[in-house]
């Protein structure tokens, strides 16, 4: 049954697949164009980035103090030798990132020992809620440009529209035509719906993974080995984020959260398709829901991780994640657990009630 459905997907819905690829490609082109036109971006020039990476390579095994000493030396050499703009920019940038690492370490030390602040950029809740900062890992200097690009590109997602399109073609259309009435009274109805569910979920997952991989490739996060070990607090704007983990783990969290939200989106759209049995109403309701959640996410950042939206300010989501005392972890974990529970419940309920 699965084999037949996949065969018929490629035979009869090849246009759907082509349109989806085209829409995603177009959305990423628009995303890259917006990124390049972002007046507030502080990405390094390619030459500066090369010099910066050399500094990273040289200081990969050093402590923060050793890094400070090294960069101080480099600064002096640059002045004496009259190094070019790329080198001096790289050194300045490195120093800025280094100071941020010191600052984060300072928050941790203050929360543990009552002293240690080294920066003027102090979190307002450091005194009131020190437990949030107690277990911060000391960040390392990283080339944060790739991550910044990743966050920017991840903020725009056409996936809810893609899921709506897939569910429209594979479910809502059949429900409107009444073809599933015949299926429901067939001997292999359960097998059919199981195969259809597997095929659709796998299809959505493949599209999502391809989209996310393209974002990761375009932003360059794969090329940054230091992301695997350095904590996310080293990234500008996330110095006080409750998320405890490396930058790679953050990227993985964003990926998993996005995948779960797309599967939630799929389940909800399937329920809507079944309830309405009308393609036109289905599109109206799903578009309204996506628009509503996109707008709500902008003004209710605490709930935005659970929403499937066209626009999700990932940096705001990461920044607003709270610290959960009872779990001694960031709210990120709760988000994943909650979404998994919700998803599991929806899949089981739909299967139990033959809502397919």
């Amino acid at each position, binding site marked *: 049954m699965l084999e037949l459905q996949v065969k018929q997907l490629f035979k009869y819905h090849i246009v759907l697949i082509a*349109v989806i690829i085209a*829409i995603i490609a177009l959305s990423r082109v*628009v995303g890259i*164009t*917006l990124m390049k*036109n972002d007046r507030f971006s502080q990405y390094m020039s390619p030459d500066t980035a090369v010099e910066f990476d050399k500094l990273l390579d040289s200081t990969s095994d050093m402590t*923060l*103090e050793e*890094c*400070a*000493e090294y*960069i*101080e030396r480099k600064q002096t050499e640059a002045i004496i030798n009259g190094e070019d703009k790329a080198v001096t920019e790289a050194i300045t940038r490195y*120093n800025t990132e*280094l*100071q941020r690492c*010191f*600052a984060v370490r*300072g928050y941790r*030390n*203050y929360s543990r020992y*009552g*002293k*240690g*602040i*080294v*920066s*003027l950029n*102090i979190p*307002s809740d*450091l*005194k009131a809620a020190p437990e949030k900062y107690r277990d911060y890992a000391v960040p390392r200097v990283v080339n944060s440009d790739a991550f910044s690009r990743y966050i920017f590109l991840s903020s725009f997602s056409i996936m809810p*529209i893609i899921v709506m*399109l897939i569910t*429209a*073609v594979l479910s809502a*259309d059949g429900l409107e035509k009444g073809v599933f009435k015949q299926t429901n009274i067939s001997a292999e109805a359960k097998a059919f719906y199981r195969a259809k569910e597997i095929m659709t979920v796998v299809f959505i997952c493949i599209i999502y993974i391809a989209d996310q991989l393209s974002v990761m490739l375009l932003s360059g996060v794969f090329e940054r080995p230091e992301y695997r070990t350095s904590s996310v607090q080293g990234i500008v704007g996330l110095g006080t984020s409750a998320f405890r983990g490396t930058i790679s783990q953050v990227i993985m969290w964003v990926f998993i959260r996005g995948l779960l939200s797309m599967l939630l989106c799929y389940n909800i759209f399937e329920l809507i398709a079944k309830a309405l049995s009308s*393609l*036109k109403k289905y*599109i*109206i309701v799903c*578009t*309204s829901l996506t*628009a509503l959640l996109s*707008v709500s996410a*902008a*003004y*209710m950042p605490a709930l935005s991780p659970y929403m499937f939206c066209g626009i999700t300010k990932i940096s705001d989501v990461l920044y607003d994640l709270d610290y959960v005392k009872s779990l001694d972890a960031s709210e990120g974990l709760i988000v994943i657990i909650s979404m998994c529970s919700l998803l599991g419940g929806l899949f089981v309920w739909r299967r139990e009630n033959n809502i397919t």
Partner: protein
Amino acid sequence: MIASFKSAYGDDKLYAACFDSLDEGEEGYNAARYNSEKLSAEDKEILDKADRYISTHSNGSVPPILPNEMVDEIFETLFGDSETAGSSQYQAVYGLISKQLYSQTFSRELIKERTEGYSRNIRRGVTDEYSLKIAELMMDDYEKVLEKEENHRERYDTRYANNFIGFISSEPISYIGIFLLLFSSFSAELQSGRYKAFKLTKTGAVGYSSYRIIIGILQAAVFFSVYFFALYTAVILSSGTKISSMPMQYLSGFELSHLPINFGGFVLRIYFMKLSFTLMLSAAVMLLSMVSRRIIPSAIVCLIPLAAPAALSRIDISLNENLRQMMTCDIIGMNNDIGAINIGGSPIDVAAVFFIAVIMIAVCSAAAALILSGRRGFDA
């Protein structure tokens, strides 16, 4: 929009308390600015003190640990406690107030400076005809504006009005509404086959299509009007009815607008601008719905004209600024300054050009839809 108010203007009570404590006129502005700068300076003093400590005690690039007393002072001053607001909050509020009052306090001065500039140019014998025409037009208008402002010495809380203008200039909700109302206006009829039955009636395809287009445009107009005036009602309820009689030059960023109208009149102007833009999009969406013939393709295709203004407003491509403003219905850009386009050496109000352009596009879209509907064999 209410949520955007809340997110932009955190503590309403604090703002009201600070705003009411200020005098009228320039004194009030100066006091707000002074307070903002003083608090900023106080914060800066503490932060400078800390900065000096860091500079003098640094070991190379390794920053020193700040003494506890200094840290406690920073916490107390900047962040306050649960009972009282910290200086950073007051500083933010006074900063916002001074920004609000700037337009109200200095609009007249700025306009007078500009008109003097025009007079100076004329006296110097500028020969460029277009410049002379602009100068003449602006001076007339600015004179009326000054007369209007003469009668207004009140102080206004323009937060909600400013937010309303900013919101309406870039809101996507009207476009989403157009999409939901109209994407299936023809595609549903074509896909279901009902269109074939309508074609065979006395009204015929063209008659039916024209009714449908008219109804669709009316639906869009009603929807947009209800939505727009609901938002405006929220502004009136928040700011009071007197905000309508405020000169529009009191809005932040509109100090040099040449339009001699009050805020209520400006709201009407932008209502008609946005309404005509919405109706143009409606006609375009209905045409695309007819071309698509099926519900799912029309759902995808009709998103394009609705997403295009938002995308164009964010992408930096080389495009004439006036053209960009019109294509994206940039209310602020088209109204906050001279707002004229050079057409054949004469300055023409950009809003007039905008109206003509959108109406023409709307009419062309509707005509194209009607021609398509009348073609033999269409709908197969």
